[in-house]
C-alpha cells in the first residue's frame, strides 16, 4: 500500500527541527515564521503531531532545560526523520517544478 502523504503540519514541524533541537513553543514560533504566519499551530495540534512523529521514530527527545522554573523539553530529528524530511522536500520540489513548467506561458520555454 502506498504510504500516506506527509501532512503539511508534520512537514513544517520536521523542518523546524532540521537546524537543531527546539522545544514545543519554539517549534510553534518557528513554523509561524517559516510560513509567513500562514500556519499557526495550536498546542493541542502540535502535540498530536509530535506524538505521531515520535511513534514513527522521526523525532526524539533531546534534553530538558529549566526556564523560569519550568522544564522545557527539546526535540531533535532522528536519522530516519532527517531522511524522511529530505525525501519529502525532494518530492515537493519536484511537484513545484512540474507546476511551474505547466504554468509557464506557451512558447516561453522555446524562447528561453
Amino acid at each position, binding site marked *: 500500500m502506498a*504510504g500516506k502523504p*506527509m501532512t503539511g503540519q508534520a512537514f513544517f514541524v520536521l523542518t523546524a527541527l532540521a537546524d537543531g533541537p527546539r522545544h*514545543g513553543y519554539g517549534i*510553534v514560533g518557528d513554523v509561524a515564521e517559516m510560513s509567513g504566519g500562514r500556519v499557526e499551530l495550536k498546542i*493541542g495540534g502540535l*502535540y498530536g503531531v509530535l*506524538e505521531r512523529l515520535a511513534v514513527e521514530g522521526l523525532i526524539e527527545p533531546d534534553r530538558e532545560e529549566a526556564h523560569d522554573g519550568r522544564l*522545557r523539553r527539546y526535540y531533535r530529528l532522528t536519522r530516519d526523520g532527517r531522511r524522511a524530511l529530505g525525501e519529502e522536500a525532494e518530492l515537493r520540489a519536484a511537484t513545484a517544478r512540474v507546476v511551474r513548467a505547466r504554468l509557464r506561458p506557451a512558447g516561453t520555454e522555446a524562447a528561453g
Partner: protein
Amino acid sequence: MSGGLDLEQRYRRVLRLLPGYYRDKWEQDMVTAFLDSWLTGDPYEDECIIGYCKPTWPEVASVAGLAARLYLGGAATPRRYFAWGQAVRNAALAVLLMHAVLGLEVLVRTAWSRRLFGLPAPPASLLVTSPGGVWPAVYHVVNIAWIVIFVTLAVGHHRTARALAALAIAPGLAALLQAQFTGIMPAPFGPWAWWVLFSLALVLAMTAFHSDAPPSARWPRLLALPAGYLLVYVPVLALLATGNLAWLPDWPGLCCILVALACLAHAPRAWSRQAGGSGVWSLTLTLLAAVAGVYRVITLSGYLSDPHLIKVSLAELVILVAAAALVAPDAARAQAATPAPPPYPGTIAARRVQDMRHQRPPRLPSALASVLAAAGIVLAVASCTGHLTPLGPGATLPHPHHLRSPLILEDMRTQGLVAGQPGGCPAGWVALSGGPGQPGQCYRTTGTPVTITSAAVSPVVSFRPPPPPGQGAAPVQYGFSITVPAADVPALAAVLPAGSGPPGPPSASAVTSATPLPAISVAGRTWILLGFASPSAGGEFDVTLASRSQALQLQHMLAASG
C-alpha cells in the same frame, strides 16, 4: 485570582480531557508550551498573566480535538482506545447506512411513482407524491443526501462526508430550535427532537473517522447499501403492497429487531474462544443496542393511549435487551482482548522504501459516488418540481399506507387560564403554554381517542376563509387532506362527530372558553386543530391549523412516517 487557580492549574484542568496514558507522557511539556505562549519575561506582567488569564477557546478546542482523536483511537493507540474507536466508527457507519437505506427507499419509490426508466405503474399503496412547499422539499432532498454521505464516507472521503452530514442535519436542527423558541413544541424533548439530536450525535461520532483511523475495505461497505435495501426494505414494500400491514413494526421497533438479529447472528462468534477480534463487533452491537433501546423508550410516549402498541413495543425492547446480553460480555472483554492496532497507515519511514510516484486513489468508488450524487440530485429536484414533464405525470394522492408512528385523533376541550387555580387550570385540566406573547390555555381530552395506523396526506395549502359578517378579512389559514382507510371512517366519525369540530375552518377568535376542538398526536407531539371536516365515505378529511409552520411540521411528520 479568579477561582483560586493560576494559569498553570487552569491549563492542567483543561488537559484532564486527555486520556491518562497521554497525560503521563505529554502533560508537563504541553503546560510549559502553553505558558511559554503567554509569558513575556516581565515579572510584573507575568504575575498578572499567571493570576488572571485563562486558556483561550481555540486552545481548549485544540485539546478537545486531540482528546477525541485519542479516545476514539486509531493507529498506534492503546488497545482499549482502539477498540472504542473502531466500535464507534462501525456504529456510526451502521447508523449512516440506515439513513442511506431510508434515502434509497425514497429514491426508489419516487422513481417508481413517476414510472422512470419504463417501470410499470406501482401498486397504489406505494405511490408517493411530490413534496409540497419549501420545507418538505428540503427534507426530501436531505433524505436522499444521506445516500451520498454514506457513499462518500465508505470510499474514504471522511472530511467531505462529515461536512455534508453537518449540512444535512442543519434543517432539522433549525426547525427544532424554531419550534422550541416559538413554543410550537410544548414538550422540550419529544421523539422528533430526539431524532434530530440522534442525528447530531451521529455527526459528532463521525469525528472518529480521523486521519489515524485505519483504512478499511471499500467494496463491502458500498455493497452494504443495496444489500441493506434488499434485506430490509424489499420485505417492507412487499408487506405494504400486499396489505399485510399488521406485520410491520414501527421504525424504532424495526431498529430494535434489526439490532437484535445482528446480535443473535454474532453471538456464536462472541462466545467462541477461537474467534479473535470479535470484541470490537460485540462492542459495536452493544452501542447500537443502547441507541436503539433509547430510541424505542422515548417513542413509547406516542402509544400511551394504546395498550396493545405499548405491549408490542415493550416486547421489542425485551428482545433487544436479551439479544444484546448475549454479546455484552464479549464487548466488555474487547478493551483488553482487541488485537493491537496497526501502526500509522503507511508511515513515513515505510514510505521511504517506495518509489516517489504520486499514487492516485482508485477512481471507481469516487466515480460511483459522483454518479449516485448526480442521480440523487436530479431525482430529488425532479420529484420536488411538478413541472418537469419529461419525468412523467405527477402522481396522484396515494392510498393510505402504514405509518411508522400512528396518528391519534381525539376530541379536546380548551379554555383560558383560570385565576386562583393551581397552575391556572381546574382539576383534570392540563396547562399548555402559549407562544410568545400568547396566553396559555387549559385543555383536557374527552371521549376515547382513535388510533389510525395507515394514512396518506396531501401537500399543505393556504387559504383565506370568508370573513364573519361585518368584519374585515380573516387571517390566512393552512391545512391539508388526510386519507384514512374506509374501515376507520366510522371510528373517526364517532370520536369526532360533525358537531364537535366546526364543519370547516373556524375563525381563530372562536377558540374561547371550553371550546370543543379536535387534536392530532403523532410520535408524542400534539397539534390542536383549528378546523376539522368530517371524513368522506372515501376516508378523506381536511385539517386546518393556525400557522404555516404547524401545518408543515404535522404534514411532514405524517408524510415522512409512511
